[in-house]
C-alpha cells in the first residue's frame, strides 16, 4: 500500500495520471494523445499539439471498514478527454473514450502489466502497477459530454471508482 495515509487525494491522482501517462508514452493509438495532471488551463492546452486526457483529484464518496479498525476509502475521480485541435471531429474523442473504457475494464492490463515509476513523498517506486501502489479501479462509467465554446472542440468525462 504505497499511497500515503494523509496524502491520498494527491497520491491517488498522481498514480492514476502516471498509469495513463505510461500508456500515452508507449502504446498506439494512445501515443496520439497527452496525459495532463489536473485541469488543463488554456495556456497548457495552447501549448499542446495533441488531444489531452486530464486526471482530476479524487473525491471520497464512501468508506469500507473492518471491525475494530480505521476505515479505508472508496473514491471517485474524473478523467476527461479534450480534443481542442478542431480537426479530429467526433471520431477522435470517441476513440479516446473507448480506449479509456477498455483500458480500465481490462484489469490485467491496467492493474498488472502497465508499470509506472513514481515518487511519492521521499520514496521512489520503480516498475510498479496500480495494485502495488494501493489503487484499485473497480469501475469506470461514462462518457458524459461536456459543452465547449467552440463547436469544433470536443470534450467528454468519465468517472473512475477507486478503492484505497
Amino acid at each position, binding site marked *: *500500500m504505497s499511497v500515503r*495515509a494523509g496524502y491520498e487525494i494527491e497520491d491517488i491522482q498522481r498514480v492514476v495520471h502516471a498509469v495513463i501517462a505510461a500508456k500515452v508514452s508507449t502504446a498506439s493509438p494512445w501515443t496520439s494523445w497527452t496525459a495532463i495532471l489536473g485541469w488543463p488551463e488554456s495556456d497548457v492546452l495552447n501549448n499542446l499539439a495533441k488531444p489531452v486526457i486530464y486526471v482530476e483529484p479524487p473525491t471520497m464518496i464512501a468508506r*469500507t*471498514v*473492518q471491525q*475494530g*479498525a*480505521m*476505515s*479505508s476509502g472508496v473514491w471517485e475521480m474524473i478523467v476527461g478527454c479534450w480534443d481542442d485541435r478542431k480537426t479530429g471531429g467526433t471520431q477522435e474523442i470517441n476513440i479516446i473514450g473507448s480506449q479509456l473504457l477498455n483500458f480500465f475494464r481490462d*484489469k*490485467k492490463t491496467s*492493474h*498488472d502489466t502497465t508499470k509506472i515509476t513514481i515518487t511519492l513523498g521521499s520514496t521512489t517506486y520503480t516498475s510498479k*502497477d*496500480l*495494485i502495488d501502489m*494501493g*489503487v*484499485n479501479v*473497480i469501475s469506470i462509467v461514462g462518457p458524459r459530454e461536456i459543452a465547449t465554446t467552440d463547436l469544433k472542440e470536443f470534450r467528454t468525462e468519465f468517472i473512475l471508482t477507486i*478503492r*484505497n
Partner: protein
Amino acid sequence: MARTDQLGAPASTVYVDGENTLHRYWLHAASVATGIAPANVYGVQQVTPGAVTWKKTYEAFQQGGGERYSMKFFPEYTVDVQMFAANVPAFLAAITNTTFAQAAGYYALPLVFEDWPLITWEQIYRQSDNSTVVGSMIFQDLKLKEFNFQSNNDNNIITIPFYSNHAPLYVDDSAQPVYDKFSGDGSTTAFTLSQTPLPVTDVSAGVADCSDFVLDNLIFCKVKTSTQDYGARQKSGISVTGTTLTFTTAPAASTEIEVFYLYAVA
C-alpha cells in the same frame, strides 16, 4: 495488546471479488498423460459450496467407562455452480465426456447423469489485477446431480448442482494442483510424477477415520480397471519419494492410474 487498540484500515489488497476469481476443472476421463491441463469454465456467476456434513457418525462408549469417543465417516458437501444458460450445454457435454454438437450429429443432451465423480474443480481467488493469486479452493471428485433449466425474465442463470464425498481443500497461493495419469501394464511398479508433491495437512490426524484423504502428500491416487467407470482410491500399498510413485503391487494391465497433488509455483 490492549482492549482499546485500533487496527489499521483495510488494505486494497484484501479485497477478493468474484469477478476476479477463475474457475477451472480437471476431467477425470481425460486421456493418459502427465500434467493434464485443466479446462477454464466460462460464464460462471457464482459458486456456492456447502459446509461438510457427515453422513455417518458413531459415538463409542463402554458401560461404566469414561467419556464417549466420536467417530465420523463419509463427509459430504454440495457445490452449486451458477452460470449463464447459454454456457451450460457445452459445459455439461465436456464434463460428462459426451458428444453434443450439431456438427457431430447429436442434437439433444439428456439431463440425467451417472452418480460417479466426473471432475475435480479449482476456484482461484485473485486480486483485482486478475493476476495475483491469493489462494484457491479444491473441490475434488465432484459428482453431478440432476437439475433442469428454468426460465426467467432477467438474464437466465442456471444452477448446476454437484456434490462430493471427499474433503474440500484450501490451497496456499504458493502451490498449485497437477493431475497425472499413467497406464498400468501388470509389471511396472514405479511411475514418475510430473512434479514433486508438496506436503498437505493430513486431516486424518484431526478427524477420526477420514484416512482416505492424504497418502504421502497425494490428495488422491486412484486405480481404474478397463471395466470400471471410475477409479478406486488407494488407501495403502503406495509410497512417494521425490517424484517417484511406487506401488507395492504392480497395477494390472490396462488400468489407469490417476494422481492429484500440489506442487510449488515457480
